[in-house]
């Protein structure tokens, strides 16, 4: 994420800040995303269609750039998990906010991913990005060889390294802080998701009540019956309004703060992974140093070489990592601020609209008396 350059990335022929995932097409169980980006040169657009596998292809290419110095220090923009079509609510739950709505939050998350990748000064250099965004043919769908970046499912031995004491105060602090923040952000996102889901349940319940009221209309000419029917109809309208208001509130929650918290959670996981890679390299370096010291004169030169190489790698990783962390921190403030401001503005608007509608209903009922 170094030097997020708006619009002009010299390695890509598209503008970065307005890459859009405009729609998603469903064919049976598979989903295809339409990605539209503006050409750098003059007018014109690139329209490409990509599946989730294509996104994974891109990610794999980014991960496997072993010859790029310090690549392990990069905080990789997090790709959302796969979206299952016709999934049960349980499987959708792991997607959190991205599983809600009619795939719009999910598309938005994919969009953000692409923009972050395209804006990254190191990552955008990779040919795969250009191909992904501009090639009308689907990018190669062969599996790229596995590498250290693949979902760092930490085996038991690896887990030990996570707690390994650091040699650098800056990084130790960052690691500790990241650990805390990741937990809290994840929890906040989960709790907020619970809120949104309950709001949706209320909207549904109001809808049911509204319908049930409508069925209470009574046939009959006598004035009391007509009066009561009218009351039922009007009340039905009231609850319909309540339903709309709740639905709107839930949507606002989803599209602003929900997405923001979701992105934050995934980015903090990404930072955690980067820090872990660095820690692993640190352990490797410390082992190499020990080996070099202990080595018998015969092996000593070789060990020294190995140690030097690891030292260089480690140094490069730290350089990149430091920049990435600082960048992430300012991004993090920006993301949350934007989310909070948008959320507040939208909710304020919805509240004003709802207040107006309810007032009107109240006037209607008062007149009826």
């Amino acid at each position, binding site marked *: 994420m170094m030097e997020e350059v708006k619009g002009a990335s010299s390695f890509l022929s598209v503008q970065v800040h307005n890459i859009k995932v405009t729609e998603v097409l469903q064919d049976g169980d598979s989903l295809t995303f339409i990605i539209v980006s503006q050409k750098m040169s003059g007018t014109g657009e690139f329209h490409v269609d990509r599946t989730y596998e294509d996104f994974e292809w891109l990610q794999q290419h980014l991960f496997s750039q072993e010859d790029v110095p310090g690549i392990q220090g990069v905080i990789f923009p997090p790709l959302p998990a796969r979206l299952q079509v016709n999934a049960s609510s349980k499987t959708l739950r792991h997607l959190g906010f991205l599983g809600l709505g009619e795939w719009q939050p999910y598309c938005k998350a994919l969009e953000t991913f692409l923009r972050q990748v395209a804006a990254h000064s190191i990552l955008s250099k990779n040919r795969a990005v250009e191909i992904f965004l501009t090639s009308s043919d689907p990018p190669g769908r062969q599996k790229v060889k596995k590498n250290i970046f693949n979902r760092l499912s930490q085996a038991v031995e690896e887990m030990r390294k996570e707690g390994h004491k650091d040699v650098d105060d800056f990084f130790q602090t960052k690691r500790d802080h990241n650990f805390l923040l990741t937990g809290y952000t994840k929890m906040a996102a989960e709790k907020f998701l619970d809120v949104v889901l309950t709001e949706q349940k209320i909207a549904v319940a109001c809808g049911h009540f509204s319908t049930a009221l409508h069925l209470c209309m009574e046939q009959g000419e006598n004035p*009391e019956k007509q009066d009561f029917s009218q009351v039922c109809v009007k009340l039905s309208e009231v609850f319909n309004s309540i339903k709309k208001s709740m639905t709107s509130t839930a949507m606002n929650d989803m599209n602003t703060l929900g997405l923001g918290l979701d992105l934050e959670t995934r980015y903090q996981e990404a930072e955690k992974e980067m820090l872990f890679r660095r820690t692993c390299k640190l352990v490797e370096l410390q082992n190499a140093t020990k080996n070099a010291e202990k080595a018998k004169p015969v092996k000593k030169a070789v060990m020294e070489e190995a140690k030097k190489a690891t030292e260089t790698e480690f140094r490069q990783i730290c350089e990149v990592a430091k920049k990435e962390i600082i960048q992430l921190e300012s991004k993090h*403030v920006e993301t949350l601020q934007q989310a909070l401001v948008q959320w507040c503005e939208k909710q304020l608007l919805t*509240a004003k609209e709802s207040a107006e509608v309810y007032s009107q209903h109240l006037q209607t009922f008062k007149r009826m008396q």
Partner: protein
Amino acid sequence: MADSIRDPPAENTDFQELEDGEDLLLESAAARESEPASLPAVDISTKTNGPKQDSLFDEDTEDLFAEATEEVSLDSPERDVLLSEGPSPAITPITPPISVITPRIGHAHDDMFTHSSFDEIEEEEGGDSFDIHISVSDPEKVGDGMNAYMAYKVTTKTSMSLFRQKDFSVKRRFSDFLGLHSKLASKYLHIGYIVPPAPEKSIVGMTKVKVGKEDQSSNEFVEKRRSALERYLMRTVKHPILLKDPDVLQFLESSELPRAVNTQALSSAGILRMVNKAADAVNKMTIKMNESDAWFEEKQQHFENLDAQLRKLHASVESLVCHRKELSVNTAQFAKSAAMLGNSEDHTALSRALSQLAEVEEKIDQLHQDQANADFYLFSELLGDYVRLITAVKGVFDQRMKTWQKWQDSQMLLQKKREAEAKLQFANKPDKLQQTKDEIKELEGKVQQGERDFEQISKTIRKEVSRFERERVKDFKMIIVKYLESLVQTQQQLIKYWEAFLPEAKAIS
């Protein structure tokens, strides 16, 4: 909130045979009079607390069968009031005689029978305008341990000349309310008046409170009960006839009330009522009342429909209340997690904004709770009240059928006696003949009375139904206006909160 736990019927130690015409309630009323009137002297000090009063009370401790009552669901047979008389349960199905007398509606008779006096009372209603407001407040634990119970303050404010004072209050306990209802029911139900049902007994609520739980749920229970008692009294006094009933006046005015023990009878005679209900159900199936008045047929159907609809609505609102409470819980949890996030945040402005977020969410949580209460106390309880009221209405229609049945029975008997008389003419048994002639005279009187009763109850029901429909509209409109006002207020609060938060969010960087 609505657990329906159906216990198997308890032992029927208080089962009493229902003899024809005997009033179970009158019996217990007689028994009651011999007891010393006792409402323990209660200190109505200013320290009475509201619903947040610490718990421990036991309604009807003398009511040994209190535990035996089931949580009364809307469907419970206990909801049927113990009615005074009626044909004995072992009635045999009768097909109406060929010469069925069609009811002549609106034909007033001169003879003195109590019902017509009610008509007069209603006519002279115009004198005193209806101005009375009753509130039930200050639930207060009285006594200790096993004998403790909850006393409520019943305050009446009125300008009507019917009352001795303009502003007065008394202390009453739950069984007093039940006692009032059973007295009114025994007097008025069988002549066609829709007597508002009393609030439910609640084994669940009582148990929680007995255990001594001083928590939100037992506070809610007390508040729910207080509100229900208030609504019950207001509905009762809104009825022009019931308002003037001496039992009602005594309930509202007199500082000491004879302890109502018939509530014990009510609960332990749950068996009795279930038996009666079963018998009635059999009766209903076999009474083919020759309904010559389409109005009644239509109305009966109408109330069946209304009953079903209201139950559906009630279930719908209960679900809504449930979700709102869930939203409140979730909002509170989110507020906590936002606070923790804010605390661990390095960036000062962001940290402050997140803490503000936590505060806003806490305030919104309170709004959700208020809204849930509005949903519940306004709609859910209103609908519940009306479901119970409809049961009372249906009961009144049943009474009309019973009255008709009684009339027909007399009719049949008269017929038989006349046939017997005819036979005896030729049998030369002057004693028997005279006896039969006497019996015939008596029966003729009964038949006439039966017809009058039937006409009267039909007339009363028409009026009552009309009143019910008017009141229903008023009731619903009033509740809806209250609800909308609460909605508007909530939204305006929400607007204030968001407007206060926005600058905080913008000030982050």
